[in-house]
């Protein structure tokens, strides 16, 4: 365990001393500040989405939705990416929930719904910064694992009495921990900015699971859930980066393929949804929060449980492959 902690500390030291992590943090802070101006402009121009539900006409809205659902004909035959029905059902469940509890929609935030308020701002920071942190982390693991292998520095480290699995684990964990640290630091920063600019987010969040089950949770709980899901996804991206480096054994190729996959694979998997392949795609299954929104997951029939199971299976497979490769590969 001491060997692992020493390796972990060494990896963190290597990342921090290069200073690029601070440049990343600076870029993300600048992005967060820029977003405040954008939100301010949209607020000033009254650009907020109208998501309020008129309680006087809620019965009529419910009846109209029920009729639409009863007569629903999909626009695309057997279209797996046609999630329109899911959205209609979710909205119906949401309206029924409001009616049953005699709740005002304006007292809540709807999960996944864009809004130009404190919660919406934090959502926007969270969403935009995560992509950058994920890409940065993929580059870091490719440099740390594939790069050190190809430039010979990994060999020197493996001459120390530390197992290869521990070395690999220390590299993955250090990149993930630093990515997570930057992400959480940015969310805290965004919280402070949001409080100053848009006030404290006090509204509870309504979420819809599986187009039928509606629930409410405190905003902080919702935020914490988002962070947990994003950190899981970050770990998945890092393991994927290492996997690609192991497949190609060349830092440049592995990094390029991993970055391309991180950017485009989700859309590719969505397209492949027509062939059912998309259902087992890793990237499409990492968007857990979509399973709590009105619009639902990207493909018809996906749900939070299946997404968590599929992405966890990916993680286990990547971990087994990467650890096996780390243990048995020849170090040039």
């Amino acid at each position, binding site marked *: 365990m*001491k*060997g692992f902690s*020493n*390796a972990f*500390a*060494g990896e963190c*030291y*290597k990342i921090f*001393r*290069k200073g690029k992590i601070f440049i990343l943090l600076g870029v993300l802070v600048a992005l967060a500040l820029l977003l405040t101006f954008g939100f301010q402009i949209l607020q000033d121009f009254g650009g907020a989405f109208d998501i309020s539900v008129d309680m006087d006409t809620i019965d009529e809205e419910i009846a109209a939705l029920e009729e639409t659902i009863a007569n629903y004909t999909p626009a695309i035959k057997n279209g797996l990416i046609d999630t329109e029905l899911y959205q209609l059902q979710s909205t119906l469940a949401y309206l029924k929930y409001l009616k049953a509890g005699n709740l005002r929609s304006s007292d809540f935030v709807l999960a996944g719904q864009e809004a130009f308020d404190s919660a919406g701002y934090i959502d926007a920071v969270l969403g935009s910064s995560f992509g950058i942190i994920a890409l940065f982390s993929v580059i870091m693991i490719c440099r740390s694992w594939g790069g050190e292998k190809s*430039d*010979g*520095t990994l*060999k*020197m*480290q*493996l*001459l*120390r*009495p*530390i*197992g290869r699995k521990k070395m690999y684990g220390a590299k993955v964990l250090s990149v993930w921990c630093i990515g997570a640290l930057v992400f959480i630091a940015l969310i805290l920063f965004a919280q402070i900015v949001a409080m100053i600019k848009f006030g404290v987010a006090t509204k509870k969040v309504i979420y819809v699971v599986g187009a039928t089950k509606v629930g409410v949770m405190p905003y902080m709980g919702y935020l914490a859930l988002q962070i947990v899901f994003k950190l899981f996804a970050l770990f998945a991206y890092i393991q994927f980066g290492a996997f690609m480096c192991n497949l190609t054994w060349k830092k440049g190729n592995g990094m390029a393929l991993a970055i391309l996959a991180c950017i485009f694979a989700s859309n590719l998997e969505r397209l492949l949804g027509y062939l059912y392949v998309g259902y087992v795609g890793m990237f499409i299954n990492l968007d857990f929060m979509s399973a709590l929104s009105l619009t639902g997951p990207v493909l018809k029939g996906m749900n939070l449980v299946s997404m968590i199971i599929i992405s966890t299976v990916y993680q286990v497979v990547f971990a087994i492959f990467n650890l096996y490769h780390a243990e*048995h590969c*020849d*170090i040039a």
Partner: protein
Amino acid sequence: MAIISIKGLTKTYKTKNKTGLKSDSQYITAVDDVTLDVEQGEIFGLVGSNGAGKTTLIKLMLGLTKADSGSVTICGYDSDKDSEKVLSCVGAIVEEPTLFKDMTGMQNLTMLARLGGGLPQSRIDQVVEIVGLKERINTKFSTYSLGMRQRLGIAQAIMHSPQVLLLDEPINGFDPQGIIEMRGLLRTLAKEYGTTILVSSHILSELEELCDRVGIMKRGKLIAVDTIANLQKDNNEIILRMTCSDVIKAAQIIAELEDIQVKVVDQYLYVKCTSEQQISDVTAALVGAGVAITSINTKKKTLEQIYMETVK
């Protein structure tokens, strides 16, 4: 009991030819059924041309490369099953030491020391002084010459006082003074601390002066292992260089002796003998014929000559 024991070690690499097709793959046996024992405190030299398999053998011993068959035991531990225990008693340099370019020598050593479980700063300072890098240890590794990189490589290899040192071309890039210092250091480690050293080098004269035994590798096979004295004996060829009162007459007399070759170069008489008895025969024949021998030197084969003849 041998501190390094290698049994039937074989490693084959698969290479693709220019077409890159699987069907065109070729197998190259980098290490072929190598068996070797090295005793504690011994300095063992590994000799061979480029691609003979020296570096691969050292990588296999360190577990950096996985063997197809055979086993390596170092300090009583199997290098495949107990690699961490093996590495805790081994210090090594494999090829040119490559460390982090943006770190100083000291930062690199400190980081590597931590990976090995940590060492007191005083020990790191001590090895820096031993390898003669004190003045440049706080400058970046990227500014180091090849010789300085090798010195830092040796520092990281010896800093945890290992029982076994595996050094692949350790004196590459060293200046003559550095070579002498390093030879002294390795001898001290072997004699005073009982460190076992396996060293490969292209500089055969260096191995000749340093090693107790040498092994000659050719195309992955260890084709000869012995002390240099025994290898010289095995070749049993002794060259006599003589000066005498009448070189021409002496050459004629020796040429009449059985199985002895003679050559005259610049007033020197070169006589090739294959036994000590033949030396006696030569001197007796010359004295008997009234030729006065004014000087006589024997010259044994160098490791380089033995190597060239062995791998032929």
